[in-house]
């Protein structure tokens, strides 16, 4: 298990975090931008140094301020996937992936890895010849190729369009599961957490405010909501499959799509009083501005 208990202070920001990353599980570090997620990841990898604290992985001490231990990034056995991939522009896909590998026996695995993410035939291409999604896959297999103990992913999918993102979430999950690597990934997307993480740690203003399984964390009072609207049906537009039902509530109109069969089953007509129910996570609450 990776245990982190560190603090670091800047002029206007203080990071003070303490959490554990379960062995061989995928953990999400979730929070809004500026909450300290990326810094936490960089401190774990050794790319940044904390002012105080301890980082241990199993029996190994990676950082211990009081004992003056600070293992350099090269010796921490982490694979780091940068937000903008950081592929070496002068090296081909194959050379990028094999860059961190010492020893010839693992080179065969690289071919398998390249094929696993669907990049066979691209071995001799340079990063500038690849699409965003392909670059992301190269960066991912480069990070995993030397079999790190921990995979650290800094918003791995944030720079991609929605379609590529959804496809790569699957790829990412498949690769992580295949190698049984302890994974810690940074995200601000709840759906990504649900899809990929076994465990989630929520950061806010440099502090851990909640942690647990995605269900435990996001079904809490603040990050989910249940809305019920009582109103009168003002119109029903239906075809053979789907019906659009418009409901009026306090001079506001709400349109909802339901199964046409359901309209028949409920015998729903214009003028009926109905309840629209919705349950959602990832809810944002704003304070309304008034004229006064």
């Amino acid at each position, binding site marked *: 298990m990776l245990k982190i208990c560190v603090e670091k202070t800047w002029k206007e920001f203080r990071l003070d975090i303490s959490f554990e990353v379960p062995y061989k599980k995928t953990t999400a570090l979730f929070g809004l931008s500026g909450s300290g997620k990326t810094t936490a990841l960089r401190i774990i*990898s*050794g*790319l940044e140094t904390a002012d105080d604290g301890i980082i241990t992985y199993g029996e190994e001490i990676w950082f211990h301020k009081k004992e003056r231990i600070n293992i*350099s*990034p*090269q*010796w*921490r*056995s*982490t*694979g*780091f996937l*940068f937000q*903008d991939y*950081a*592929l*070496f*522009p*002068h090296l081909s896909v194959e050379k990028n992936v094999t*860059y*961190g590998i*010492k020893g010839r026996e693992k080179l065969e695995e690289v071919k398998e890895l390249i094929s696993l993410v669907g990049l066979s035939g691209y071995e001799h291409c340079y990063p*500038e010849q690849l699409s965003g999604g392909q670059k992301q896959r190269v960066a991912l297999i*480069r*990070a995993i190729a*030397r079999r790190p103990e921990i995979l650290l992913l800094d918003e791995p999918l944030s720079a991609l369009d929605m379609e590529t993102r959804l496809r790569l979430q699957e790829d990412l999950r498949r690769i992580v599961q295949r190698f049984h690597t302890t994974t810690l990934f940074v995200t601000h997307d709840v759906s990504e957490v649900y899809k990929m993480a076994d465990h989630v740690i929520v950061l806010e203003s440099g502090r851990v405010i909640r942690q647990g399984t995605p269900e435990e964390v996001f079904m809490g009072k603040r990050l989910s909501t249940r809305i019920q609207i009582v109103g009168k049906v003002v119109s029903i537009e239906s075809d053979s499959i789907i019906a659009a039902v418009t409901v009026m509530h306090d001079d506001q109109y709400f349109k909802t799509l339901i199964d046409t069969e359901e309209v028949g089953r409920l015998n729903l007509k214009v003028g009926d009083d109905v309840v629209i129910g919705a349950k959602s996570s990832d809810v944002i609450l704003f304070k309304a501005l008034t004229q006064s």
Partner: protein
Amino acid sequence: MNFTAPFLLTLKLSTITTSLLFIIGIPFAYWLAFSKLRLKFIVESIVALPLVLPPTVLGFYLLMAIGGNSFVGRWYEGIFNKTLAFSFQGLVVGSFIYNLPFAIRPFQSAFTGVDKKLLEASWSLGRSKLYTFLFIIFPLSRQGIITGCVLTFAHTVGEFGVILMIGGNIPGITRVASVAIYDEVQALNYGTANIHAAILLAFSFIILAIVYFINRRFFTRLF
């Protein structure tokens, strides 16, 4: 009159100066690029001094520093049984110092221009700082390194003030092409001076054109 001797000497001096600055300048520029030492600006200012100092001022201080009465001069004379000032070796020392900014600054600027994320990616992939330098920083800084070498070479070819101050005008030893031109003009041999100057001009232009052509081809291939 031997036309070729000053040019061969110039070529020899430029090649040695450029090679020395390549070997010593690269690690030094790396240190300047990545050191977090607070007083680094003092070292940077010293390196840049030859850019603003009149060559005669630099030449004068160098002459003081390597002359027969100086510590360095006496030490050199004790070992090699000859003076460092007014020798070819003295010219190399002067040329090395005078050309420091022309090599170090492009090297340093190229090193700092490499995206830091790439270095971090290399470290996080388990590679040492030396390996990262050799396989990431160096190849990605090739344009700056080539520029530094070309500037050093071309600047040494055109050097005059410092060389005259610390080397004088000894045929075959310190009489480089630029000094030979000055000498011919002093002797009112404009024809010979003209030939020397034209050869130097053509030589410098060809060297620069070749190197920039190679540089451009490299970058067209890379990007």
